[in-house]
């Protein structure tokens, strides 16, 4: 090729300046012919030497890059017969007169090749995106353009969480996708597909709009058996981190199993956490989670990464199995077992503010928490374009217990709690299509039981239980059983012109039974009387909802006009207490949004709703909640009416890389009860609830602005949040007004200095003030600085530095804490084995002081952290 270039160049050099042809092309009527091709050939050659195209006036100029004696000049164009003339190689004018002739052009149609983006499906080839250091498929997925991953494992596509994680089109894990994402070896996967705007319920496809995408894993082989393994050891004390995860996939069956164990502070339970927003079940009925009626006095964990403070010893085993059944049905079974022993050590200093006094007490705590949970979910599903059916059955057992050793003002207190929990639930959902309308039927049934107990040694509340004399022990036993049902039918109809309506009727029931008793000393001698509960609780709820929605290019208006009827029957026969409440409520909601232009949007809402208390807010006998809280709710059923107003202005301008919003919310709640907490001289508290109408107010303002500076490769993000609240409360029988103000602000700067160095700095300040009856208490604040630096000296090495600095200004003391971590990773490029050395908490910061402030108390806790530790890890896949 290069030869031809130079040849041509020489040729044109010596040829230039020799001759130029000019001329005009006209047709038979002598009108100029534009766009005609004039080409020059050597005689008997078919290769064009030079060319020109006639302009609007039909004129052309062509330089002759040849010194041949004669040349061939050809004129041709669309709609004209071609003409050619042999001319001498000298500058001259050559005019053509062409004849009109329709020329037949040769048409071709070549078979198309398959393309990688088809409609809404984006296919990423794993081999193309995989790096040598990638092990699990998640390592590849996090790097795919348009995809990001949160610290908890949630996958986002274009900033929105995915709604399904399929493997070969099957939803094996029902949202617990971290398990596959972090353990499925990347080399078993051929492609990762993103299905944009995916509606998981196929009957709703193109009828109900979905903004979220789904992810699908395509395997290299249709039948695959694979897995990963990891082993890490460290010091001090002896640390371990192990993971073995085998898997099997075929066309009709899929299985993922995993066993994981560690004591390095990694929360293995994250891997079996449901990460998708289950729109199938969401908004209808959720399984009631376990309510703890009794417990050891907790130690609030610090609000940063759990690897800093979690003293754990966790074992996780999980088996997930899917099988395709005839007639498009499929069956899934997900079974998880988790066993964890955690330890919390620290001190707490509690200051209680009262209108007249402040009470202080100090505690040294050593809590041991044991968690054991086994859950099994069995799902049968049919998901076709004409029919949707799902039935999900859940069985769950939890065998949790807590042990607390505490020194209260140097007096030892021993607490032992057991709180097993058993749950059965069944959820059925069925959708039919009747012409263009959809009829949805849902049914939910749940049954649960939680027999709990707490033993405190020596016996607390000596004045209440033993006439002021000390005694050995006090045992609280509580048992709650519940039965819940909910049935609902709704119809979805498009009315055209942007209007749609959705009528809905539903029926919900709740039957619960609470039994409790307190036993004195080791003989469990029953105290009886007002220290026992024998409560039966029945709630029946009917509703008729009508939702109207209107949408056009600028406006979106949604109006809900539901009417609810509630019927409560609560009775404690031995205590001769009961409450019956029937109420008809109207709880309208209006939401309006208006788009000024693509960057500026204003939205607002108005909502009125009634809330009624649950069984944990209405019991007539005393309960020992923890060793220093004796509580009863001997009052009417909480019945609150809240009115909320919100206003949100958002600005998004991607062209100048600037984003921001201002959000304001105001709410007013009318309550029928006031709660009182009585403080005793020995530090114990008693809670009561009294009937007394009152109103609480709260105001919240949030603002956020972010900008990216292209030239500096730096982004800045600023945050501000102000909360004001005003709520009356009873303190030792006196009605007080408590006003609180909290301000949070912070910023984040991040940038890249070069391809081997990047940095990030974050700052956050939280400050809190409160006032009781206009008497202001001393303000407190917490500041956090974070500086992270990443260095990449070569392809197989990564060196990371992570620094955190905390400054706490508390009412009576200030404290500081600093943490630094170093990570060094080396990858053996050929054998796909990683060696990683992690050194956490370089300065061996062993304690953290934090403060949490409530409207009437202030708690300052010192938490014992994980000390300096070094872990060496090896990872590979099979």
């Amino acid at each position, binding site marked *: 090729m290069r030869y031809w270039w130079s040849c041509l160049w020489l040729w044109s050099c010596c040829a230039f300046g020799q001759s130029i042809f000019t001329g005009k092309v006209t047709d038979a009527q002598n009108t100029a012919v534009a766009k005609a091709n004039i080409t020059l050939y050597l005689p008997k050659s078919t290769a064009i030497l030079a060319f020109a195209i006639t302009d609007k006036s039909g004129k052309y100029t062509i330089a002759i890059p040849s010194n041949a004696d004669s040349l061939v000049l050809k004129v041709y164009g669309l709609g004209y017969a071609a003409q050619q003339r042999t001319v001498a190689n000298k500058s001259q004018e050559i005019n053509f007169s062409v004849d009109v002739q329709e020329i037949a052009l040769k048409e071709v149609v070549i078979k198309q090749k398959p393309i990688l983006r088809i409609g809404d499906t984006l296919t990423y080839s794993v081999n193309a995106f995989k790096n040598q250091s990638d092990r699990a498929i998640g390592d590849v997925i996090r790097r795919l353009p348009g995809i990001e991953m949160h610290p908890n494992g949630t996958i986002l596509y274009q900033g929105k969480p995915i709604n399904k994680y399929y493997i070969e089109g099957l939803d094996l894990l029902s949202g617990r996708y971290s398990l596959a994402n972090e353990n499925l070896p990347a080399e078993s996967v051929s492609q990762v597909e993103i299905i944009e705007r995916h509606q998981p319920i196929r009957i709703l496809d193109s009828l109900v709009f979905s903004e979220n995408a789904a992810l699908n894993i395509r395997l290299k082989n249709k039948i695959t058996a694979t897995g990963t393994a990891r082993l890490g050891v460290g010091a001090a004390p002896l640390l371990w981190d192990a993971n073995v995860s085998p898997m099997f996939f075929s066309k009709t069956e899929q299985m993922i199993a995993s066993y994981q164990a560690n004591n390095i502070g990694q929360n293995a339970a994250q891997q079996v956490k449901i990460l998708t927003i289950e729109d199938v079940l969401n908004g209808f009925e959720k399984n009631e989670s376990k309510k703890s009626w009794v417990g050891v006095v907790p130690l609030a964990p610090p609000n940063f990464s759990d690897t800093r403070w979690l003293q754990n010893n966790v074992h996780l085993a999980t088996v997930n199995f899917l099988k395709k059944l005839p007639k498009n049905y499929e069956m899934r079974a997900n079974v998880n077992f988790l066993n964890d022993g955690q330890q919390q050590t620290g001190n707490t200093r509690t200051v209680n503010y009262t209108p007249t006094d402040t009470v202080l007490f100090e505690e040294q705590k050593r809590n041991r928490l044991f968690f054991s949970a086994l859950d099994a979910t069995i799902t049968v599903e049919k998901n076709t374009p004409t029919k949707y059916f799902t039935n999900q059955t859940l069985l769950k057992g939890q065998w949790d217990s807590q042990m607390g050793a505490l020194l209260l003002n140097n007096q030892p207190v021993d607490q032992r709690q057991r709180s097993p929990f058993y749950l059965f639930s069944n959820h059925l959902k069925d959708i039919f299509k009747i012409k263009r309308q959809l009829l949805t039927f849902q049914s939910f049934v749940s049954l649960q039981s939680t027999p709990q107990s707490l033993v405190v040694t020596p016996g607390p509340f000596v004045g209440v239980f033993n006439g002021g004399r000390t005694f050995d022990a006090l045992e609280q036993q509580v048992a709650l059983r519940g039965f819940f049902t909910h049935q609902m039918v709704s119809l979805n109809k498009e009315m055209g012109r942007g209007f749609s309506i959705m009528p809905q009727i539903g029926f919900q029931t709740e039957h619960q039974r609470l039994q409790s008793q307190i036993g004195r000393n080791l003989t469990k001698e029953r105290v009886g009387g007002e220290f026992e509960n024998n409560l039966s609780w029945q709630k029946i709820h009917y509703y008729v909802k009508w939702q109207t929605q209107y949408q056009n290019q600028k406006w979106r208006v949604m109006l809900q006009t539901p009417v609810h009827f509630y019927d409560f029957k609560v009775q404690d026969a031995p205590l001769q207490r009961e409450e019956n409440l029937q109420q008809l409520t109207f709880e309208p909601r209006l939401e309006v949004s208006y788009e000024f232009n693509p960057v500026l949007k204003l939205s607002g809402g108005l909502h009125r709703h009634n809330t009624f208390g649950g069984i944990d807010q209405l019991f007539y006998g005393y309960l020992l909640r923890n060793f220093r809280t004796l509580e009863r709710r001997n009052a009417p059923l909480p019945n609150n009416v809240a009115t909320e107003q919100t206003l949100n202005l958002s600005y998004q301008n991607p062209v100048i890389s600037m984003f921001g919003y201002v959000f304001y919310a105001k709410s007013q709640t009318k309550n029928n009860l006031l709660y009182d907490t009585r403080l005793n001289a020995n530090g114990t508290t008693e809670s009561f609830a009294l009937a007394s109408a009152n109103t609480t107010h709260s105001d919240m303002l949030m603002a956020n602005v972010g900008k990216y500076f292209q030239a500096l490769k730096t982004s800045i993000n600023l945050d501000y949040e102000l909360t004001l609240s005003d709520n009356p409360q009873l303190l030792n029988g006196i009605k007080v007004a408590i006003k609180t103000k909290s301000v949070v602000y912070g910023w984040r700067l*991040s940038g890249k200095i070069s391809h081997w160095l990047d940095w990030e700095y974050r700052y956050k300040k939280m400050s809190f003030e409160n006032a009781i009856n206009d008497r202001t208490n001393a303000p407190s604040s917490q500041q956090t600085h974070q500086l992270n630096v990443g260095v990449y000296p070569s392809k197989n090495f990564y060196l990371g530095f992570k620094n955190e600095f905390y400054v706490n200004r508390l009412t009576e003391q200030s404290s500081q804490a600093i943490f630094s971590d170093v990570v060094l990773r080396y990858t053996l490029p050929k054998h796909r084995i990683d060696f990683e050395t992690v050194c956490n908490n370089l300065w061996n910061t062993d304690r953290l002081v934090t403060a949490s402030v409530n409207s009437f108390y202030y708690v300052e806790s010192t938490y014992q952290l994980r000390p300096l530790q070094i872990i060496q890890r090896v990872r590979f896949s099979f």
Partner: protein
Amino acid sequence: MNTKLFTFLALFSTLVYGQRYAQIDKARYQCLYELTHKQDTTNLTLKESENFTLQIGDSISVFMSLAEYQKDSLYRVKNVWNLSAGEKMAIALNAPRSIFEYKILKNEQSQKIAYHEALTKTTYVYEESYKILKWKILPDTSTVGGYKCQKATTYLFGRNYTAWFAPSIPIQDGPYKFGGLPGMIIQIYDSKKHYNFMLVEFRKLKVQKPMFVDAKNFTTKTSRKQFNLLKKRFEDSMFQSSSMDDNISFSVDGTQITAQEFERGVKKMIKLNPIEKN
């Protein structure tokens, strides 16, 4: 079909979408090009391909991705711009999409190439002269795609291209901004073969098809330099906005990695390989 009703409907629909779209010319010929391209310079084994259409009218030709063309027609037929957001979404849901969202209009009369591309809701337009292309004809001939072709070379914004054109189709057009050769460009590729356009279909239309672009009210005039700056900022901010979340660390296979380490990985992958390098 009732002809009166048909005429009425045709007239009515022109009126309605006449607001958003303007008819520019009628296509006489239709070409289909297949582009094989490498979007990611760090992974040159990854080849993607996509189909493009070139509609040739009497004085104007329009070049755009097939997906974009299909989406445009769908939106026009369904009159999307006058529908409610919900209905619009339902249509957009099933519309084909492409990563190449531009339209390139070549106008014989004004000898101008107009580049149209929408960023957010505004369509930006910039014009260039036909003179940005300087062709060198080479003597090589070969049969490409069933046509007898001759070779020519040119340079455009950072890449050297080789084109094979067919004098037997005397239309001076081709894919992308390429044209002005004495015959249709059948194949054109850059020296690194990162972009390769190949003609897979050439047809004369039995019925001339009207061609539409966004009406003037919906477009903003700019220059190529300004547009590229805007687009760069737009892409950066898209990336930036998605990473503006308050994440501290990420756990990969049980290993904590920093947000920057994560972003670095992402950025490395997004390193695009645009057709115009400067």
